[in-house]
Structure formats: C-alpha cells, structure tokens
C-alpha cells in the first residue's frame, strides 16, 4: 500500500506501508476483534483488489488548500 502526501507548500512524501502490518494494527482495536483467518481473507482480497483497481487509487483526497492525499494498493 502506498500513501502519498503532497502539501501545497511542502515536499511530496511517499510512504510505502505493508498492508498486512496495517491490518494487524487495525485488528488490535478493541472494537474489531478479528480472527486471523479473516485477516488472511482480507489480505487475499487486497491482492485481488489491486488487479481490479488497475492503477487507480483507493482513496484520493484533494483539499481546497491544495493538499493531496492518495492511497494506492
């Protein structure tokens, strides 16, 4: 997963975040008690989603101030 942050006046920051790591972090949240089996399913779905998205971003935020946040798988 690639997270790109570009502020209007600052540098462009690219953060490659392993999706697995992020999922494990989210799963530790008390509200979402996710069994490891489900996590594996999500990982598989993420891999397939990459093909479905064909380079398109998962989330794109363009603020009025000129800041951009783009999340790609």
């Amino acid at each position, binding site marked *: 997963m690639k997270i790109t942050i570009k502020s209007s006046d600052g540098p462009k920051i690219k953060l490659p975040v392993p999706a697995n790591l992020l999922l494990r972090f989210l799963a530790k*949240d008390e509200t979402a008690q996710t069994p490891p089996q489900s996590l594996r399913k999500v990982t598989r779905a993420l891999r397939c989603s990459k093909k479905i998205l064909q380079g398109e971003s998962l989330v794109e935020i363009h603020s009025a101030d000129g800041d951009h946040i783009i999340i790609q798988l």
Partner: protein
Amino acid sequence: MASLQISFFTPNRTVQVYIAFAPAGAEAERLFIIMECSLGQKIAELRRTANITQEILAEKMGVSPQAVSKWETGQSCPDIMLLKNLSATLGVTVDELLSPKKIDHAVLVPDAQRKKSEDMLLRIVIHSSEGDDIKLNLPLLLLTTLIEAGFGPDSFPSGSALKNVDFDKIIRLAQAGVAGQLIEIKDAEGDIISISLE
C-alpha cells in the same frame, strides 16, 4: 424505454435517483436496462451540444451532409483520418469520442454483459462546499471481505458520513446486476455526495 429522474427535496438535502425502465413486456425483474450509445449517437449528441448543424460539420470535415447523417444513424463510420479533426470540432479528445458513454444512471445490465459483482467498483465521490474533494474507489470484493472481517460501518467512528451507508444493500444491488450512478445527494451545506457502481 423511459427514463425517470426522481428528486426528493427535504429541508436539509436534495436526493436525486436516476432510473431507466425497460419497455412494457420485458421481464418484471428487468426494471433497468443498459442504454447503449454508439459512436454515431455520440457524434449527434456532441454536435447538438456544440450547436453545429450537420451541414456545417460536413463542410468542416470535407464530406457531404449525407455522410454525417449516415455516421449519426450508424449506417457508416467516419474515416480514421477524420477522427482527430472531428473530435477537435466537437470539443472532445479522440479518446473521449471513441470511449463508451459513461453510465450516469442506475441500470440493470443484461446477464451477457454483466460483470461479476466481485470485479465491480463502488465509487463514492464527495465534493464539499468548502472545495475539498474526496474519492473512494472500493472494490466490492474488498468491501465484502472487510465487512465480514468486522471492519464494516459499525467500526467506523461515530459521526462518519459513511456510517449510515447501507453497504449490504449496495452489494445486493451489484449482485443483482445493477450498475451506474445509484444516488446523488446535495445537502443544505452544499456538499454533493455521489455513489455509483461500475
């Protein structure tokens, strides 16, 4: 075939729902059908938008008005050498001219043309009145798996705009073969939220 646009006005928001109805006699479940748009239809639509007559377009392209008429009725296609000039005259790119028309309303896609629901994308676009734009492209496969794994709307923080979205219903619509823009909401603050399935 009839197309229907329903607008609901409430004190806080305007909701627009686009529905295309199948002709009488079609299967009851086929309430929505896909609207195909050929190159000819697109040329005719763009020509009318640009306020150009068939004669003027023909003159600009160096062909007869009958040739333009034939393009628009689908009896023939413009020569490949004319595409660049034609698209420029109509105010679009060659790519836009040749690309299939984007479905901008909900339709029921026939079985033969239907994508698998797992290969579909749920697009949520939010244009805030303050000028912020948020785009979410969620593959349905990922959405379904996330909900099953407990990362569904219940786990969203309270106050999240997506908390009240009925994702189960959207997934069921996709499985039934519905595609296109499902809903467009404009709230009192001027934010526009659009949800579509592709």
